[in-house]
């Protein structure tokens, strides 16, 4: 019958159409060594999930999507940060409540932690335990914690309750230092956790502390961003100040405060060779680690969302509007010249210089 034939023809064309579709699930997997060079993590967005770019130390090669290339799968959003041990890298994806363990050299997945975390942000490793800061429910100020992970089986063994919005974590001498940027609201403390007793001590700093490092004297330098104050009708009514503060870790007190003008909110800080580099509103500045006042002249003018300093070079990334690849810049710190630029991961945010 004519109509049956027509129908069958239609069906066969249809099946042909289907079988000719590109199968985007087949990604050619590669095995490379990423253990030396610069890794740039991109947070991702609805345009693409978190991803990592690699640039060789001599900048001769660049690879994008190294996790996807190594594993054939995507990471999820948002790739907040990466923590490293001797052999492994840990990729912290906050919206997916996941930490993925990969081989540090090849980035091939070795394991993951998907339970016991809620909005994980940063991680550091002490002996065989990892400490992961978690916002919990970002709208709740009372359920924030540090997850303690046993790295032999990648399971969360306990949670240490801390105050709102724990962000970056670094450890020294059996103590964990946590900056509380305050999740979606605000906070103004650095927590010090004794890792043998789990006792939490809080040190008050300026509002929204984020980046931290230990200076050459072994003291903790903290960058607080300050915050916007809103009127009852949610118009901006004022600001609290930002500051670079040094904490004497013997006494857990703030020993030095260098404060910013009202309305200036620094967002990035790096430390190299006794020098503190900080970023605010399109400019990078440099001061000595023991300086008591801020720099007056900018070192570099560039919009940045991530920054690192190493070998007398400043690395910066700009995520733009998170809808396309980010920009990566390297500046020579002697000349202040831009010596390298390239496109990197979508939502580029963190730079890890591995040497």
């Amino acid at each position, binding site marked *: 019958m004519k109509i049956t034939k027509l129908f069958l023809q239609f069906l066969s064309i*249809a099946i042909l159409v*289907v079988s000719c579709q590109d199968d*985007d699930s087949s990604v050619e997997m590669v095995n490379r060594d990423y253990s030396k060079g610069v890794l740039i993590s991109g947070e991702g967005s609805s345009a693409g*999930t978190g991803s990592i770019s690699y640039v060789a130390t001599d900048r001769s090669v660049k690879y994008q999507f190294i996790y996807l290339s190594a594993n054939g799968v995507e990471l999820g959003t948002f790739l907040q940060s990466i923590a490293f041990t001797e052999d492994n890298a840990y990729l912290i994806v906050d919206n997916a409540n996941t930490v993925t363990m990969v081989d540090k050299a090849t980035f091939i997945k070795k394991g993951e932690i*998907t339970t016991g975390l809620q909005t994980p942000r940063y991680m550091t490793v002490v002996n065989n335990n990892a400490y992961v800061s978690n916002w919990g429910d970002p709208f*709740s100020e009372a359920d924030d914690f540090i997850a303690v992970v046993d790295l032999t089986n990648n399971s969360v063994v306990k949670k240490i309750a801390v105050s709102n919005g724990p962000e970056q974590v670094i450890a020294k001498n059996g103590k964990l230092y946590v900056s509380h940027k305050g999740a979606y609201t605000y906070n103004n403390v650095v927590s010090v956790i004794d890792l043998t007793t789990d006792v939490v001590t809080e040190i008050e700093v300026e509002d929204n502390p984020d980046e931290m490092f230990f200076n050459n004297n072994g003291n903790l330098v903290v960058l607080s961003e300050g915050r916007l104050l809103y009127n009852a*009708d949610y118009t901006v009514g004022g600001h609290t100040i930002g500051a670079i503060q040094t904490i004497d870790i013997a006494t857990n007190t703030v020993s030095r405060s260098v404060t910013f003008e009202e309305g200036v909110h620094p967002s990035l800080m790096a430390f190299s060779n006794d020098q503190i580099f900080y970023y605010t509103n399109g400019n990078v500045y440099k001061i000595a680690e023991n300086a008591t006042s801020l720099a007056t002249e900018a070192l570099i003018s560039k*919009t940045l969302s991530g920054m690192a300093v190493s070998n007398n070079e400043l690395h910066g990334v700009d995520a733009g509007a998170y809808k396309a690849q980010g920009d990566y810049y390297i500046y020579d710190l002697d000349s202040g010249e831009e010596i390298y630029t390239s496109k990197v991961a979508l939502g580029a945010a963190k730079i890890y210089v591995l040497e």
Partner: protein
Amino acid sequence: MKLCNTIFLIGLFCGLKTTAQTDSIQRLETVVLVADKYVKQKVTGQKIIAITAKDIAQNNNNPTETLRFNSPIAIRDTGNGGASSARFRGTSASNTAFLWNGININNFGLGQTDLNGISIATSDEILVKSGGGSIKYGSGAIGGTVHLNDFLYYKDHQKVQVLSSYGSFNTTSNVVNAHVGTQKWSFKLGTTYHQSANDYDLIDDRYKDKEGKFLKNENGAYQNYSFNLSGGYQINPFSTLQFYSTWYRGDRLFSGALPNPSAADEKYKDANQRNLLTWDWQKKHWHHLLKTAYLTQEYRYYENKNKHNYDYGNSTTYIANYDVSYKKNGGTRFSWSTDLQRIEGETNQISKKNREQFAVVLGVESELCERLNYHIELKKEWNSDFRVPVIASLAGEFNLKKNHKVLLNLGTNYRVPSFNDLYWPGQGNLNLRPETAKQIELGYQVIHQNLTIKSTLFWMDVDDKIVWVPNANLATPNAWSPMNIEASYHQGGELFLGWKYWIHQKSNVQLTTNYTFTDAKNEKTNKMLIFVPQHLLNAKFSYQLKKWDVYLQNLTQSSVYTSEDNLEQLQLGGFGIFNAGLGCQLTDKKHQIHLGLSVKNLTNQLYQFSRLRPMPGRNYQININYKFN
């Protein structure tokens, strides 16, 4: 079938209604009153297609599915049942206007309509108009408009439709639509209930759990219900008073994405209510139409479904509208329309803000000669928040020969900034201007008894597009703010084909298809706009033999870029999926029962509209469509 022929020639109505709705089309000419007559009777030079009750019955899980398989709109949902945005011709969701009985119902905060946050199944007529229409339909009518219309019939009648389905993932859709009335009075009562556990397997082989099983679409459950009550009274042969009201309530969870869908715990509740009162007076050369409307919208967003704290927003809109037109027999029609609106909106972060707007529209419409008619319109809007440009439209239709028509439409359209764009705390930008668009389209239509072809070529330029960018405002460093910084151009073509062939008296085949080619690029970078498929096709082929029918349905979409720099690695692959169904119609004088069995995603194909959010694999549904009078 002669009657159908006449009907097809009357106006811009799509084909393939011959079996589905012959009944209602007949009445339309004489005794049906629609609040928004404009779209069918006076839109000139644009392509309009209709979605029938039968189409809804076949794709009834949610409005996204209904429109995705039956219209030229490209729809992106964040997983099945998730937030869903519609785009015509490569524009955005905020450039797509949804109209309920002629009233713009886009969300006050975002300026767009979430297709999984409305109910459309009780509408007696769903029209999809491609191309702008800001003159009549206001802000956002840039890429195209979707019209949801209710009918009131003035004759002695009683008819009820009950549509119910149950299928995989505990999904059920239920619709009751009842009309009753006399020559004086008319009432309509409708209700819908949709519910789904929506816990389907995410059929991507690359992401499995430790036991090697597919991960589930977690936290994806939804339910919503709506009521619709309309009524009218024919005061005298030339004047009618009508009211329409609808009430909707939705409650859903937002599902998680791969690789760890269990991380999701968001919840969203919304409710809206719309009321419209119209008075229609038509005598001799004059036609007056007075409308007042009162609309409310409300949402609650829970970042964590287990907690009680939420973000909320609500808005109230008051509308008063007066249209008058004058037409001498066979002569030129002059029309004048004024529209006054007040919108009040607030959220937990934005204190109450008001917007007032007043618009005047002038129109002239006439037949230049027997075969050519034209329609010119001009609109000026005064808005309390910003300057809105004067916009104009010029359209014409030329009857080449019997059943063949050439259409032309050119005009300008706009989209005003949303409340969020203007007032978001610390980030909103009070200096925004409306987005503006220029468009030209040229159409060719062939409308025969059993064959309808509607094709159109379009070109459009959208300027001052509002985009949220970081570091836009020095007063709030590191914050994102909206700015009028982008422009895009859109060109392409649309084709609608409807064909029906009677093999013999009791069997026929039918084909309906929408194809759209879109080339939409950013003017600065010349890159394709994100989430815009270049090729989009849906087709439905059905065969009916006596009381039995089978259908095969296809949706084909070419790959889309998800990043603005068009990275190959960040494409969503193209796909072609199929649905198929078998049905049986039992009919007697008063009752019509259609029983159907559908298999959706027949080939169990992995396809997705958002990154890492696969749509359901092969799934099944049984449905019943029962009509009686």
